[in-house]
């Protein structure tokens, strides 16, 4: 059962200018995306920088006011701040950030950082609160003496754990993870990913995993959304996206990932050049005249592709074959 539904979400940023600082134009950061989130699942949101993936994340946690569309939480619309508060939404949806250091107040001790959401939403005595923080630190594998230290005293991986501890403090249902591992080294990245998976099982969490690293997303996510120019170009299960990509943009992304195999370098290179060329030639089939992505069309049970009509897809396939 899905508990969060996003219907035709739009976030447009005005560009102001001119003599009276009037609105000249809009940036269509997110331009009509629809998806839903079920319990205990991980959703991946992939796209290059500027494709609007972070904006979706921010709109979901309420850091960005949507221009259009609606977000339904247990079938109740979340329009205003008050509506969010009424259904306890702020408690249920948390976020972890890419640059953890800037998301942790440098003047606060770890105890206060983790206590902040608890103090906002729950009424606990000091002892109860301390006990809760200690359990949280234990869950994320940090020693109790971390309580009275400051964020700068920790390494990147440890800071990310503190961010996670703060996010899970209120037993949320959904965590929006915005590039949680892209600033970390390989071995630390592996630690954090394993650990995110572990707490997912323990708490029955859902993740919305925002990343540009297709390897990480492949490892983590059940269902994947590929974004380009503020819209979804292809959505499907991991299997659909990686083994049967249909949209030319998805193909291009996958072809650009450097494979960890030095053997058939030439082949990979040639394939990439081929896909790149195809991307340029076939642009008109996958994007309309203004470069806008078409609406999604269902091509199998779970697999959707943004294309004008299904026939076009067949034509493309024939051409390639």
């Amino acid at each position, binding site marked *: 059962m899905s508990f969060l539904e996003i219907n035709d979400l739009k976030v447009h940023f005005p560009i102001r200018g001119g003599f009276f600082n009037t609105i000249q134009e809009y940036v269509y950061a997110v331009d009509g995306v629809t998806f839903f989130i079920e319990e205990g699942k991980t959703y991946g949101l992939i796209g290059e*920088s500027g494709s609007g993936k972070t904006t979706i994340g921010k709109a979901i946690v309420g850091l960005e006011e949507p221009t259009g569309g609606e977000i339904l939480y247990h079938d109740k619309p979340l329009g205003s701040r008050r509506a969010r508060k009424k259904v306890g939404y702020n408690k249920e949806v948390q976020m972890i950030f890419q640059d953890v250091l800037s998301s942790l107040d440098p003047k606060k001790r770890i105890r206060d950082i983790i206590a902040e959401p608890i103090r906002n939403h729950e009424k606990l005595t000091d002892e109860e609160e301390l006990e809760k923080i200690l359990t949280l630190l234990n869950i994320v594998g940090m020693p109790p003496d971390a309580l009275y230290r400051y964020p700068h005293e920790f390494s990147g991986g440890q800071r990310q754990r503190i961010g996670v501890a703060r996010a899970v403090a209120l037993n949320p249902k959904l965590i929006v993870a915005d590039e949680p591992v892209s600033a970390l080294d*390989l*071995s630390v*990245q592996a630690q954090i*990913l394993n650990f995110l998976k572990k707490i997912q099982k323990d708490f029955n969490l859902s993740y919305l995993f925002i990343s540009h690293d297709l*390897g990480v997303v492949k490892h983590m996510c059940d269902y994947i959304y590929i974004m380009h120019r503020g819209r979804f170009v292809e959505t499907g299960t991991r299997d659909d996206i990686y083994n049967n990509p249909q949209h030319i943009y998805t193909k291009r992304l996958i072809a650009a*990932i*450097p494979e*960890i195999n030095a*053997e058939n370098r030439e082949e990979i290179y040639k394939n990439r050049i081929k896909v790149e060329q195809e991307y340029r030639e076939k642009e008109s089939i996958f994007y309309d005249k203004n470069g806008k992505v078409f609406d999604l069309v269902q091509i199998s049970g779970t697999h959707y592709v943004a294309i004008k009509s299904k026939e076009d897809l067949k034509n493309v396939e024939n051409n390639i074959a």
Partner: protein
Amino acid sequence: MGNEKILEIKDLHTAFRFQDEYFDAVDGVSFSLHKNELLAIVGESGCGKSTIANSIVGLHDKNFTRVSGEIIYNGKNIANYSEEQFNEIRGKEIGFIFQDPLAALNPLHKIGKQIEESLIYHTDLDKEQRHERMLQLLDQVGIVNPKRTANQFPHQLSGGMRQRVVIAIALSCKPNIIIADEPTTALDVTIQAQILDLLTELQNEINAGIILITHDLGVVAQMANRVAVMYAGEFVEVAQAKELFSNPLHPYTRSLLQSIPQSDLVEEELHVIQGMVPSLKNLPRKGCRFAARVPWISESEHEENPVLHEVSKDHFVRCTCWENFHFENEGGC
């Protein structure tokens, strides 16, 4: 690949000062770079890979660092060159590409001027020739409208364009050596692929030797001729790229390759290297530096003073612990 050596580094030590004590961040690294070769140095942050690069072109503050050992370029040891002497070769014979192009470019000058700057220092071209060369360089790095870009400021360009400009500056005097320090880390995969293709293409044109510093093993697998894996200030494994990826030997290399999320089995946990990289001050200076991270390997497997052994042709591995190495969850022998 040409066999002509253009750079040779012998027993390089670069030490940083903490309260009147020096600690080696690069601890006895030796390698050579050949013409038209791409040598990749991989390792995690803090292992000393960028320190090597900065030592080669003398970018360290002499008050806080001590560089010893030999860096032989053109038959001369440049390790302890003065600032003036470095200015002669920096930019002219050794080009440098940084990770963050926005920080490498001056925000107050137009792109054209910044490219011409190194031409003023290092060539005797007159104003018109410089301008022409500048446009030619921009064209060479795949910028569609060189004339327009030359008149823009760095903030007006996208990340990929900026990195192209930085590459154009690095190439301006046709250097013999290009040092690329994480050139694509800040870029999207599609742009990364373009920039890497561009680098390979240009390398073939000017026959330069490239030192590519990165932590991305995928990039290394696609680009490098030879790979050096670095851990805690030392090279732990050096081999041809194909050899290294098909037959990794050192425990660190193997652990790194294991920890990359790429398997189709999602239920599988990623491999985690135990413990942490020791800080510079607490680095064990004796014995195998990786020993603390693989505690299940008995001490007798490690060498007392680990050195690089040539285990097969051109494949060097430090220490002897790789011979009977197994991951903790595998049954050992």
